[in-house]
């Protein structure tokens, strides 16, 4: 499947979009429920388990430092581990690519005359497809991890990097066993299925000749490898065979054994929410255990056979050393494959790794892995599914900016696939971006939303009528992929900036003001939802703030979401230029749209000089964060609107249902609304859904409409029947909640701002 990029503006759009949408629809129906239940369970477990750590943030920082240092010194660590492993009596082979690794492993198998290899779970071995290589030589390969074994029997691919068979139900496994083993009365309970597998695999393990494992970490100072497992199959794989082949990416190296410690504490908690998994094997192979001889089994177990063990460490490059030299992809090498980013991801929870994944890896970080290992084409197949909601960022134990990797790779895809002949010149005025001509129209249209919105506002009556006019919607769907089931935003005839000018500026005299603030007129507030802008002005003024609403450019969030990095970067420069005089004058910057605040704080770090970024990030506040701060500093809560006594939009009283914006949570401002509401006497229920599913423009795209609605399903479950007033600060969340709940939510500031 190709990306959207070749789908714009021609008849090819139809079938291509269909295919992608159909595939997603099918997965939602067949695997979605099992994946959702499991990943949401893991995700909730992560919060609980990491919450039990006193020093979670410090551990994450330490883990990050170790990875940065290790990747920096990688060539030296490779040399060092070669020496230590050889001194222990093992061998190290550094394989350039999959074929090279497989050739070596096949040679080892041939030399040891192996008839059967047993394996414990290893994503790296999936990456090189060693099973097929060995089977081609007549070596039987048996996966001993129960999940992997199920997939091997079913001839399916993993749908999750840690729990590979997450998409299979208990009933499905029972049917599979019945069919594969010709059982009239197959095991049905989890217990019975597990015991069936234990016995079958136990027999296969006894006769095996070669044991293959991965490695989660390898210490260069001793040649010690660490394996994180729960079933005990990796222990058996190593113990029961006299030849151990460990396959690991070069990035698994860390300098010392002592540096394993933070990872041991973080990996299980981050992944499946287990404080620690049953077994942490720290082996310095060849291991010393005797090899049980299951054939001549009347010999003593401890017969000295441990001395005859062989160990081969196969370190895989396969693009990794080149990733190390690539500023964007390098961070991927810090990944410890814990799966937190998959489990925290709304889209992943709905479709799993069969849609949100490439050749081997899945979830948000897969874009980095697949781009580095397989190439851009593979990454392009699923990279759209990262919406940039950023909920994976605080979950990642090594602090990888996963959304950024997705953005930067999307930028490369855009540039790589651009076809200059594709651009319709008539469109040029609406898409004044910095991108190459020929970029997919839907991408450019969304990326240039700020210009589009301004145009829509200028021509509001016509634009609004046209926008929702049947044939125009059909055209929009066919040409630019905007789903006709979505309502399009209705542009305001008077923008926020115009309204503010018309009223004659701030109602609070600067001489009497406690503070001065700029209300940032983000694109959505300025041209579409002007009311929340007005409410912000009123709320701030009620607390004695002299407000300004200058005309400022869009933040660059929409182009960023489309991977249009250069356009976003120039937006950042323009916004900073527009705000700099205000910062010089000591004014605060108040931001209504959470995604824009997140852009200032997170992504602008990449676009602006460090001092400028820091200045802007420090001076800018989420609207509710700002109100909270004013109240803390002695502002009078009575100036704001307390729970209504039976009038106005909060007529149902003091009860609110609040969905914080995904990115607001990542920059840790989501809680200020809750705190402020509570302070004013509201009763708030906060959603625990990571992302509403709309994620900016994502849910508007026809390919993803169903997926987007499915991602929002937990919100419908939580808030669907509520009598509470629904509150959400994000524009796109508002659209989504409107579609899900059939009632339009308010921005938190509209709840507490005094009435006009």
């Amino acid at each position: 499947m190709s990306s959207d990029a070749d789908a714009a503006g021609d008849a090819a759009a139809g079938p291509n979009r269909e295919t992608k949408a159909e595939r997603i629809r099918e997965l939602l129906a067949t695997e979605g429920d099992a994946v959702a239940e499991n990943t949401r369970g893991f995700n909730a477990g992560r919060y609980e388990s990491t919450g039990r750590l006193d020093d979670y943030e410090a551990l994450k920082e330490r883990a990050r430092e170790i990875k940065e240092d290790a990747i920096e010194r990688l060539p030296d660590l490779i040399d060092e581990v070669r020496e230590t492993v050889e001194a222990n009596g093992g061998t190290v082979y550094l394989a350039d690519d999959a074929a090279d690794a497989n050739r070596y492993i096949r040679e080892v198998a041939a030399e040891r005359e192996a008839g059967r290899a047993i394996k414990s779970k290893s994503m790296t071995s999936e990456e090189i497809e060693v099973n097929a290589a060995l089977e081609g030589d007549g070596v039987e390969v048996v996966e001993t991890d129960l999940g992997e074994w199920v997939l091997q029997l079913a001839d399916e691919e993993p749908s999750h990097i840690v729990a590979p068979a997450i998409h299979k139900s208990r009933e499905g496994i029972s049917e599979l066993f019945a069919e594969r083993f010709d059982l009239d009365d197959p095991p049905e309970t989890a217990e019975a299925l597990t015991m069936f597998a234990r016995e079958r695999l136990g027999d296969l393990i006894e006769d095996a000749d070669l044991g293959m494992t991965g490695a989660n970490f390898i210490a260069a100072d001793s040649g010690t490898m660490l394996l994180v497992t729960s079933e005990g199959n990796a222990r058996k794989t190593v113990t029961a065979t006299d030849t151990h082949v460990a396959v690991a990416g070069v990035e698994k190296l860390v300098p010392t054994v002592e540096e394993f410690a933070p990872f041991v504490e973080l990996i299980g908690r981050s992944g499946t929410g287990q404080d620690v998994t049953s077994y942490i094997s720290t082996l310095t192979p060849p291991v010393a255990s005797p090899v049980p001889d299951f054939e001549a089994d009347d010999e003593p177990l401890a017969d000295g056979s441990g001395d005859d063990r062989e160990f081969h460490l196969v370190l895989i490059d396969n693009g990794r050393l080149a990733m190390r030299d690539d500023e964007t992809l390098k961070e991927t090498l810090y990944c410890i494959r814990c799966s937190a980013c998959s489990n925290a991801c709304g889209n992943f929870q709905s479709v799993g790794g069969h849609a949100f994944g490439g050749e081997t890896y899945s979830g948000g970080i897969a874009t980095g892995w697949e781009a580095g290992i397989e190439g851009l084409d593979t990454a392009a197949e699923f990279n759209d599914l990262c919406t940039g909601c950023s909920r994976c960022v605080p979950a990642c134990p090594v602090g990888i900016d996963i959304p950024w990797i997705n953005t930067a790779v999307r930028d490369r895809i855009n540039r790589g696939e651009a076809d200059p002949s594709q651009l319709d010149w008539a469109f040029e005025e609406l898409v004044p971006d910095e991108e190459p001509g020929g970029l997919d129209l839907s991408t450019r249209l969304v990326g240039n939303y700020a210009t589009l919105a301004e145009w829509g506002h200028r021509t509001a009556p016509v634009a609004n009528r046209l926008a929702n006019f049947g044939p125009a919607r059909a055209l929009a769907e066919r040409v630019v992929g905007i789903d006709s089931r979505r309502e399009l935003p209705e542009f305001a005839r008077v923008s926020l900036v115009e309204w503010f000018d018309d009223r004659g500026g701030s109602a609070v005299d600067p001489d009497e003001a406690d503070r001065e603030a700029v209300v940032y007129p983000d694109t959505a507030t300025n041209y579409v939802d002007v009311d929340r802008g007005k409410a912000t002005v009123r709320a701030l003024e009620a607390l004695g703030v002299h407000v300004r609403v200058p005309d400022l450019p869009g933040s660059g969030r929409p182009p960023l979401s489309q991977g249009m990095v250069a356009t976003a970067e120039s937006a950042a420069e323009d916004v900073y230029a527009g705000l700099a005089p205000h910062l010089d004058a000591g004014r605060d910057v108040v931001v209504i749209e959470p995604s824009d605040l997140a852009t200032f704080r997170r992504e602008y770090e990449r676009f602006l000089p460090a001092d400028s970024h820091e200045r802007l990030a420090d001076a800018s506040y989420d609207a509710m964060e700002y109100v909270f701060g004013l109240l803390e500093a002695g502002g009078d809560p009575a100036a704001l609107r307390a729970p209504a006594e039976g009038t106005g939009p909060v007529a149902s009283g003091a009860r609110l249902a609040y969905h914080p914006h995904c990115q607001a949570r990542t920059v840790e401002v989501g809680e200020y609304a809750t705190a402020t509401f509570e302070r004013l006497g509201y009763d708030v229920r906060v959603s625990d859904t990571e992302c509403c599913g709309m994620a900016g423009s994502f849910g508007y795209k026809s390919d993803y409409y169903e997926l987007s609605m499915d991602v929002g399903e937990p919100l419908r479950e939580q808030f669907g029947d509520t009598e509470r007033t629904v509150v959400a600060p994000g524009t796109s969340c508002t659209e989504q909640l409107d579609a899900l709940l059939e009632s339009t939510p308010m921005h938190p500031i509209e709840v507490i701002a005094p009435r006009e």
Partner: protein
Amino acid sequence: MATADTSTFRGRLDDFGVTVSEGPPAACASLIDDAAGDPAVGVPLGESGPDALEGSAASLPERVATDPTTADLRAAHTGVTAASLGIASYGSVAVEADARGTEPVSLFVDRHVVVLREADLVPDVPDAFAWLGPRARDESTDVVFATGPSATADMGGLVHGAHGPKEVHVVLLRDGDGDSDAPGPADGDGDAPGSTDGTGVDG
């Protein structure tokens, strides 16, 4: 070792469904006898655990076969070994994969009975790796930190005993004070912690 560590350790074992009994070294054999099923195989404590257990009063009961054949191992219900170290904050025990077969004896059985000296408890994970580091570098030691029984959630629900032992029992040996309370089992039957998943995390 500090009492705080011991109570943390016991609390964690309880979380993971691991039963514990406690007593002085002299009571070791009888504590094992109470905990082990039949037939039982084992590795002499001084050989599978720290040197300090060698020549101590702690021993295995007669019925535990200490030089088993592979057939004995296959037939065994219980495997008895010592642990070199315990991590209080996680309820983990360090089982060494040594030439005496501590690893297969603790792995290819339904129940693992593991003997740990209270003196060998360390508070936390960094302490354990500070202990392991020099051993790995100088002696190529192979250690499995085992926490609770073998587990899987791959078959649609949490099940213990996927490949390894279904049950684990820890015999905790108190320091020296041989004359204090009579040994007695202190059962823990807690649920597995955190998530319902037992899947390994692997790269």
